[in-house]
């Protein structure tokens, strides 16, 4: 099973509400640089970058700080992470995030909080 946040860029209107919801839950501040989902302008529309739980980062992690839970979601164990950011480079969709002055990388854990904030259903949690 794999649970992940599915994106529909064709529906996105670029309101960034998902980023606010994510960073507010994760870091207690409204700051797009601390959001697991990233919305960027791309021509006339928008790109939506978020983890698809492909597990490339799990294979790259030298300390096995990244593991897959029973729902197929990649989780970071901070007590094992040594902050090398190899996972950030290994991510094929640029969805493993980090921010200035923060030690740990972070990523979408498919919690779904952002989906509730999206006015156009451009993001939905799915299970495959």
């Amino acid at each position, binding site marked *: 099973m794999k649970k992940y946040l599915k994106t529909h860029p064709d529906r996105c209107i670029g309101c960034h509400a998902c980023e606010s919801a994510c960073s507010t839950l994760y870091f207690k501040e409204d700051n797009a640089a601390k959001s697991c989902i990233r919305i960027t302008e791309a021509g006339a529309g928008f790109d939506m970058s978020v983890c698809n739980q492909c597990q490339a980062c799990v294979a790259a992690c030298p300390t096995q700080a990244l593991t897959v839970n029973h729902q197929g979601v990649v989780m970071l164990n901070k007590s094992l992470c040594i902050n*090398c950011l*190899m996972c950030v480079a290994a991510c094929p969709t640029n969805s493993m995030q980090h921010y200035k002055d923060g030690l740990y990388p972070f990523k979408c854990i498919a919690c779904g909080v952002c989906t509730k904030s999206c006015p156009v259903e451009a993001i939905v949690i799915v299970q495959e």
Partner: protein
Amino acid sequence: MNKIERKLLAEYRYELRPVVKGYNRRTLYIDLGTKSIKEKPVSDLMIDKFVGGKGFDLYLMWHGVKDNTKWNDPENEICISFGPLCGNTNYPGSGKSIVTTISPLTGIPVDCNVGGHFGPYAKFSGFDAIELQGKADEEIIVCIDGDEGIIRIMTAPDEEINSHILAERLIEEFADNSEKHQFVSVVSAGRGADHCGISCLNFSFWDKRRKVARLKQAGRGGTGRVFRDKKIKALVVKYSGLKGDTNNPVDLDTLRETGLKLHREIEKGDAHQCHMRECGTAHLMEIMNDYDLLPIRNFKYGQMPEAIGLASWEFKKLFTQNMPDGCWYGCSLSCCKAVDDFIPRSGPYTGQKVCVDGPEYETAAGCGSNLCIWDPRDVVELNFYCDTYGIDTISFGTSVAFVMECYENGILDKDKTGGLDLTWGNADAAFEILHQMARGEGFGVIVGKGVRKMKEIFTREYGADPNFLHDIGMEAKGLEYSQYMSKESLAQQGGYTLALKGPQHDEAWLIFMDMVNNHIPTFEDKAEALHYFPMFRTWFGLQGLCKLPWNDIEPEDNAQTDEPAKVPEHVQNYVQIYRAITGKELDKYELIRQSERVYNFQKVFCLRMGKGRRIDDIPPYRAVGPVTEEEYISRAERYDKQLKEKIGIDPGGRSIDEKMTILRAYREDQYQQLIDAVYKRKGWTPEGVPTIEHLQSIGMDLPEVIEVIKKSL
């Protein structure tokens, strides 16, 4: 297995303090004879003049040994240091230890740059260097508990001392539980190091995925022999507090972003550049063979069709793929490949499944092509036993190649080898030599003395022609050559033979620049390269870094830069991470100057110990040109062309012997002219002694240094 009963012989408690800007500002001194343990402060002078890493090692050793100290004198030291950048988890290749000692092979300081987790853990336990002096009167282990701040010296009744088993057992013993094996690292040698000069030390790291202790080698110059002579079975370090900011850098963000940039470059580029993640340095095998640079039959030839059997794709089949095989955390180059579940067919571990680190290029060439052993599994077996016995694969390969050529020439026969048939390619004989080294018996012990001592023995005992042995014995200063052919690259001949510790390629690898691309055609060009690259590469040893991420991955636009051989963007990366960790100013010029001070100090150290003059910088002719007729004939077209175009001699109508004599005179003269140019560029006299003016100009004019120079001039 039963727990080993250990007696506590000495204990020392110290204050745990955070590392500040890459430094602890103290070193650890242990006298193994008296069991005294103490801290020594790191002075401003040490940091300003010697930086760290190899610089600290040499500084401590200089004050620990006498002018006439031999490798097995109690005052000889083993120093292990880490450098201010060591242990960062952000920039690839940042976990190196540098080991120095007075070498049993050369009698001068040898330095080895080695991976594994020991260095970073020992540094974060509280010390910028470890200095071991004296000799224990019984077998011991030394344990540094960096979590509690305790050093312990304990008895070591362990029966098994071979590294692949000892390292694993000590990790199990000293880890808090089986989930915390990765927080313990072990330094050990092996049975071979009890008997042989060509020995090494193994630095472990716990591989969480494979659940085994992996081993990286401080390979060159006999460090393992000194370690065992001091009756040390192992050093153990335990540290569990590692994070990305444990060095307390002044600018973590720059450090992380610079590291991330290189991670991304590797992610994108390695698969179509060097394939380090798939094959490690063994990717070089077919490239060296293609360019006539792969040593075959004791460096006679650089290319043979059979060498395709040792091509990288053959090793790739044996290496487990898609593992984060870094020897320190954060190294995305991941070159330390391993063969899992290998089953040896000889020796004490016959039939047991083992994990083998490597083979790396040097081992594949030294224990493979140079001996005409073409089955990669035989190379893996030699690799495994060399490592676990504490034998240096490079010196082993070059030493066995030497005796095989002696056997070919009738200098040795079965009577003299104790029945060993040393025909080229006889892997079983090579295995047996190795097992004899571990058992301390038979012809293996003679081979374990290294090429220089074998030359003396074969001349004295067997009446061999010393001139022939000198020509084919691939050693200089007493150290065996590493595994590249230098015949057609004058610059590399210098790169090897001018290397301070002996002919290792870690000072300069100029073959492509010189021979293939002809970028350094004049003596002055070559001298400049033989100044810059040894200095640049020395810097890795000062900082606790690995050389490989410098140029085994290159930025996409590197070829379009002014000086692609220097990889300018990566040089700038190093400048940035040095500043980011230490907070000190540095540019690419001062980087070279930092190295130049330590490099010249090491040179003066060699002079102090009785070596390091021009006469010590002369290569065996095998490294310069064809020694035998068969070598000349095999590349006759090349050599005849050189006679005609470079010397102005018509080769027509001349005998092979005559042509070889002319070519030799020319090539040896070229080498002497090269040395003149290099010494001049380095600021040394024609005898190879640094001038006082030069030492003053670079800031390495300490009174004790000048005193040695005055005696040497």
